[in-house]
């Protein structure tokens, strides 16, 4: 199974999915840590994947979404954004709505 199919399956089988560096308990990058904090603040239950554990996924996810950085948040199989967009959506209350609709 190609990495694109693997990603597609992961993204579609988790209501909320975060591709990050490290794990929610031990984020390995400031932006990834920020993304985890925001999701926790929204009370979101989410799946996560440590791209540092798999270089193919680390590269493949950037092609999948045409987005060059990590973290990447997906809700209901759709790419929502990276740390910046998550922060902005959280500040204007939009992310909380998206999370409660998905959870």
């Amino acid at each position, binding site marked *: 199974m190609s990495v694109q199919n693997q990603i597609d399956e992961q993204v579609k089988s988790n209501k909320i999915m975060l591709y990050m560096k490290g794990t929610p308990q031990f984020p390995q990058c400031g932006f990834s840590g920020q993304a985890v904090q925001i999701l926790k603040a929204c009370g979101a239950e989410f799946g996560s994947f440590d791209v540092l554990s798999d270089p193919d996924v680390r590269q493949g996810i950037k092609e999948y979404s*045409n*987005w060059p950085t990590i973290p990447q948040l997906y809700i209901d199989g759709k790419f*929502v954004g990276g740390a*910046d967009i998550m922060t902005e959506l959280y500040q204007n209350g939009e992310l909380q709505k998206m999370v409660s609709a998905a959870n």
Partner: protein
Amino acid sequence: MDPENIKRMIEQGLEGSQASVVGDGRHFEAVIVCDAFAGKSMVEQHQMVYRALGNNMDEAIHALSMRTLTPEQYEQQQS
């Protein structure tokens, strides 16, 4: 890689854009105003900026946080 360099790359690569970039050499924050952002989602707007930076700016892309605004949004924010 300094704020000036990133500002020039964005403005050259994204026609009609105005960028203000600050940074400490490791992390950079940019506010980009462009009328081509109108009607586009935040994801699309940021992708336009990433395309303007091009792939030889990988390091900059990783260190950059950005806010994208249309001229109207920028004015509203100023008032």
